């Protein structure tokens, strides 16, 4: 709510930064004719073009704001059903005085949309049919009625050239001044409603039970939201078309949902994405001759969603893949460190560093795999090879980390046998998993809870945290300790 200025800043940034880049790319690819068109688009000379742009901005804001709520309420397909269900209302509104009177169409379509949502509500509450079936039913039945009405209107002498068929796939170029006034009105109402009832909408979206318990009129909020949704669908009809309006509601909001965990940020981002895809779609359809606007807006929105899906900083697929990969690499490294420690321990820390042969025998891997893994360790400054490349020495950092991992493993084994009463021969696998994720605080608690035990269930020594801290890489290693520390 307090971020109003930010919204406009974001819009300005998007308009200024994103679009010319896109235009240049398209200009490079195709002939000068398109370039001229693009120039015409950005010079804003055309008054009808300005109307289209303003329309797509208003549309994007409204759809983004309302879409966010329906996405978090898991009612995305209600938007779809609603957008199909308004068609008979559009036809009847048109029939009112046989022109595309925006107000009549708006009223008719909103009533039809509300009837549709009520029909869904009634079907799910009075029969055993589930919500998805009810949505599909209402969507298709209302749409069929609408199709029949539209075709009957087109058959009339006055209806033939009415342009009512433009409602199917959208023709943003046909936006009239009254349309724009209506869009401005609806957008204002939606923004005001979201600002005023932000808290109520938020609570009833995320925790309906709590909202009811605190005395919020949840059903009224639901129907109010549906009313606004129907209005938003109707103003988007002219530009996007009946079939694809739902995408303008769902896609920008879902993209925003991938980028943030806070509702107010999601609202802002969704509105910005809605505007961006609206303007981009209008631009792309302007490049060609007589191309429908709606599908391009939808594709632009899907493109934004795809980008958020892949490259979102926290929930994006690439980021997630990267995190998983670096985690599994870390686990690999720590397992090798542990193996080196075990080799040294079996020799009671006498002799030189662990040889690759010994590591092979312990890890049951080939010498090449071990060599590869040691290289990864060396890259992280945890180990070095000897001159011949046949033995591994730990650096002080590597030694500290190796002891910490072994400590985690053995502490956990001890904890499972002592506290959870699991047989000692059943605890290894679990400890293998958890040794990599135990935090320092948990380890301290474990040590305290186990009375600073020094032996694990198999009789091996548990390195204590205090000792490991003393092995601070900056300090000299304890006397007589071998197997590490020779920097090459």
């Amino acid at each position, binding site marked *: 709510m307090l971020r109003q200025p930010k919204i406009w800043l974001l819009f300005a940034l998007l308009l200024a930064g994103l679009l010319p880049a896109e235009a240049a790319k398209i200009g490079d690819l195709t002939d000068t004719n398109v370039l001229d068109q693009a120039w015409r688009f950005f010079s804003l000379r055309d008054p009808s073009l300005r109307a289209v742009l303003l329309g797509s901005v208003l549309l994007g804001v409204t759809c983004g704001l309302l879409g966010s709520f329906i*996405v978090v309420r*898991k*009612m*995305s*397909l209600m*938007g*779809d059903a609603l957008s*199909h269900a308004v068609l008979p209302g559009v036809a009847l509104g048109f*029939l009112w005085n046989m022109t595309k009177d925006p107000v009549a169409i708006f009223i008719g379509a909103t009533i039809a949309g509300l009837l549709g949502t009520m029909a869904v509500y009634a079907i799910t509450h*009075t*029969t*055993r*049919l*589930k919500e*998805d*079936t009810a*949505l*599909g*039913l209402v*969507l*298709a*039945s209302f*749409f*069929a*009625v609408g*199709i*029949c*009405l539209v*075709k*009957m*209107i087109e*058959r*009339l002498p006055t209806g033939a050239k009415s342009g009512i*068929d433009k409602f*199917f*796939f959208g023709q943003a170029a046909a936006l009239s001044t009254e349309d724009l006034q209506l869009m401005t009105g609806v957008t204002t109402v939606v923004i005001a409603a979201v600002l005023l009832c932000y808290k109520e909408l938020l609570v009833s979206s995320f925790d309906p039970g709590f909202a009811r318990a605190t005395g919020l009129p949840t059903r009224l909020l639901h129907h109010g939201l549906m009313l606004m949704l129907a209005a938003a669908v109707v103003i988007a009809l002219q530009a996007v078309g009946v*079939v*694809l309006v*739902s*995408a303008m509601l*769902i*896609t920008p909001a*879902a993209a925003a*949902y*991938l980028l943030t965990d806070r509702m107010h940020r999601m609202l802002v981002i969704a509105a910005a994405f809605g505007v961006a895809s609206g303007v981009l779609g209008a631009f792309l359809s302007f490049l*060609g001759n*007589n*191309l*429908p606007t*709606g*599908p*391009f807006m*939808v*594709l632009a929105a*899907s493109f934004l*969603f795809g980008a958020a*899906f892949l490259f979102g900083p926290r*929930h994006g*697929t690439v980021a*997630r893949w990267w995190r998983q990969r670096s985690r599994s690499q870390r686990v690999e490294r720590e397992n090798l460190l542990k193996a080196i420690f075990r080799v040294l321990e079996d020799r009671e820390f006498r002799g030189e560093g662990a040889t690759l042969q010994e590591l092979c025998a312990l890890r049951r891997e080939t010498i090449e795999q071990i060599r590869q893994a040691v290289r990864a360790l060396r890259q992280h400054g945890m180990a070095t090879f000897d001159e011949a490349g046949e033995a591994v020495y730990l650096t002080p950092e590597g030694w500290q980390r190796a002891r910490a991992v072994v400590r985690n493993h053995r502490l956990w084994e001890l904890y499972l046998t002592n506290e959870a009463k699991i047989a000692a021969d059943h605890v290894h696998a679990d400890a293998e998993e958890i040794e990599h994720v135990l935090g320092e605080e948990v380890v301290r608690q474990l040590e305290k809870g186990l009375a600073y035990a020094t032996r694990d269930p198999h009789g091996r020594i548990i390195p204590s945290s205090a000792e490991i801290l003393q092995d601070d890489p900056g300090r000299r290693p304890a006397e007589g300790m071998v197997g590490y520390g020779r920097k090459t």
Partner: protein
Amino acid sequence: MTELIPPFDFQRVFIEPWTLDWRVFLWVVLMGFFVAAACGLTGVYLILRRMALVGDAISHSVLPGLAIAFLAGSLAGGGTVAGGESHDLRNPTLMFIGALAAGVVTTLLIELIHKKSRVKQDAAIGITFSSLFAIGVILISVFADKVDLDADCVLYGEVGLVASHPFVQLGGTELAPWPVARMCLVFLATGGLVLAFYKELLVSSFDSGLAASLGIKPGLMHYALMCWLSVVVVSAFEAVGAILVIAMLILPGATASLLTHRLPLIFLWTLAHAALSAVAGLHLAIWLDCPTAGAMVVAGAGLFCAAWVFSPSQGLLPGLRRRLSAAKVEAPQFDDAGGVSPGNPATPVARR
């Protein structure tokens, strides 16, 4: 208003179709029945598995598959659609491949989005089908001269024109128009598959755990169903378009499940609904002079509403009457059981 709705003329609406030009109307009704029945039989499983809206998604996203198949066909044929020669470009094999690919891609995309991110399944469905449908519409409008599809066909099909297609010839006799014959085949195949895999589909729809323990792979059944759904949808596409096909998928099964609880009976009611809505839709279309596919869906929706109100077991009206009579009978402890009738108030006890 009087211009909009033509005066009702019994002779013109009900008698003339079956006396003057009955062949044409017979084919239209048969086509409507085959479409609604094939879709309805498949749709029963969609309803049971709560996947009605996946059907919605696939019916939309078949469009780009078809558009690409037509493009490929016209490239292979080396020509553009010119007037009446369009029929040759509709290569059925390519169409089926395109539709199957579109269906599988839709299913995979929905799963990808909803498993690999925190977007919920409903939003994933909405995003997937709208993007694919948008691609389809753009392909159609950019390559309008190469793709034998127009926006009208996408929206409501042309079931009313089936009789104008060439006929299947067998031994010199004309059997049926090509689209009707094809749809009949799809319908028979659907029926055959439902019978052949009745048990597998039943178990995997109601209890996927049990299905897995019986050796039926629920995932395999899911993908097989989605593939078959794509085939049915693409066969019905020409007749009823991308959007009305959803009604054909859901309406018969939904009406049937209001009337009975037994799966075999649901199938019978589905077929009955398909037949009734085809006939009633035809007459409605003749009366109002509107697209036949749209009128068939409107008739089907009317039948659904009738079932909703009057269904003996779950209808609104019998339910109301039961509640009223239950209030009269003095058996307060059984009020909620729902099955109380004044004749034998002891039955609920037995049920408990």
